[in-house]
């Protein structure tokens, strides 16, 4: 972002721009974190910040974003911010296994947000897939592929599920993710319809 752009953002925060500049600005996603920072600075100058606040947080967010421009999935630990870059590369490598799948969907403007949920959810599930005796009703674990089989001496279905190749497992995971993502996306799109008359369907595009 150039100097001029920064001035825009600053002016926008102070409410000194016209509508057209503002529209351009709102389309320029690079400026948004700047915008946030200027607000923070503005608040600080007017003495409207609570004590001990978020200034640090916002600085560390900026740092985190700078360190990692390709961030796609949410970080599990905020402590990474100050850490050297190497562990993050390792973390990225782990994520990159899943992330490219979600880069294909150019037609949805919305998906990135939604995707984060889905990946994390299903991965969590998968990690504990063998923990079949877990008493937790929140994380009910079933074989990820094939049919659900009761935990018993009967080993038939389990062997059958081992017959699936890695590709098939990945394909299945991908399909689960697409459904979950689409569901999340629909929640966003449907809210307009929910509050209106039930018979009326609000038409919203799903493809471009």
């Amino acid at each position, binding site marked *: 972002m150039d100097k001029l752009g920064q001035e825009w953002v600053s002016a926008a925060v102070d409410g000194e721009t016209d509508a057209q500049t503002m529209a351009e600005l709102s389309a320029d996603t690079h400026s948004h974190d700047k915008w946030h920072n200027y607000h923070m600075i503005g608040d600080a100058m007017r003495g409207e910040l609570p004590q001990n606040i978020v200034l640090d947080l916002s600085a560390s967010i900026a740092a985190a974003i700078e360190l990692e421009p390709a961030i796609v999935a949410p970080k599990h630990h905020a402590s990474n911010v100050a850490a050297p870059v190497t562990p993050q590369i390792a973390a990225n490598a782990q994520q990159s296994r899943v992330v490219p799948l979600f880069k294909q969907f150019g037609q949805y403007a919305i998906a*990135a947000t939604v995707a984060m949920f889905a990946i994390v959810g299903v991965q969590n599930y998968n990690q504990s897939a063998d923990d079949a005796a877990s008493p937790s009703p*929140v994380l009910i674990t079933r074989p*990820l592929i094939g049919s659900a089989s009761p935990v018993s001496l009967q080993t038939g279905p389990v062997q059958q599920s081992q017959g*699936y190749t890695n590709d098939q497992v990945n394909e299945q995971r991908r399909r689960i993710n*697409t459904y979950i993502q689409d569901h999340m996306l*629909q929640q966003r799109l449907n809210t307009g319809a929910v509050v209106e008359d039930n018979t009326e369907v609000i038409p919203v595009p799903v493809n471009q």
Partner: protein
Amino acid sequence: MRLILLALLALVFPATAQEDMPAKAWLEKMSQALREKEFKASIIQLQADHIRPLVYLHGKVNNQEVAFLEYLNGPPKNAVRVGNRVTFIEHDEPAYSIVSNHIQGVWPAAFSANMADLEVGYQFVLGGRTRIAGRPGQMIRLLPNDEFRYGFQIWLDMETYLPLRYDMLTQDKQLLEQIMVIELIEFSEPPAILQEAYKQEWPAVIDQAERQDGQNWQFAWLPAGFTVVVRDHHRLIGSHEAVEYIALTDGLANISVYVARAGASPLPEELITRNGLSLVSEKVGNAEVVAVGKVPTQTLTRIAKSLTLE
């Protein structure tokens, strides 16, 4: 003396009025407060092992509701609502707008709508009081009327009636999701940022031409209170797979039902993620019915099995 007594009565009366207020009245006050108050709430959202901090501002400018939601961690992600239009501003995509009078992602849409709609599926029960975000809060339980949906607990600020905390619970009282206010500030006039948002020109609502009507799928059975809100056919994100789509809701729980050609690799019959989102799949001939939603898997299975084409 009589005057003093009257004055005392006048002082005591509002307190007793709150004392006697039934749960539904509390919820109605909440719905009204969410639509009419000017406030800023700093919120954390807990889902499985994720904690996400966010800020929500709401006010009225020129008699139009204006709201702003910002996620504070990670890449910038905001949503702005002016009247019936919600614009999403995200780090990796151009901003876009949709028609909606609710920003999805904080409180459920039903909280600011008509509470009577929820009565079919839930019972409102007054709970205890506790302190949240430094404010006294009154708890209201939304107990599910049957085993087909999850329950909720809401804590309301006793002064403003704004929600302070919201829990989603399984039948065994396991926490699935929690939204908690950590700081609530009420304003007497809309905050500057909302006035700015109102003045701004936001991208036009995305083209509405392409949501085509779906087939006339019918459900032989639905849990009480669930109705169809949307049906269409579209392509899934990423896979571009064509699906018939039906959205169901009882106000709080949202279910998506998809009908598609069965894929090469079968989906699991059921799956539950840790934030309570369930997915079930049901094979019918060479088609596949997939149901997704934050309800028990048994509900989804039964709904998927009851789908028929007229």
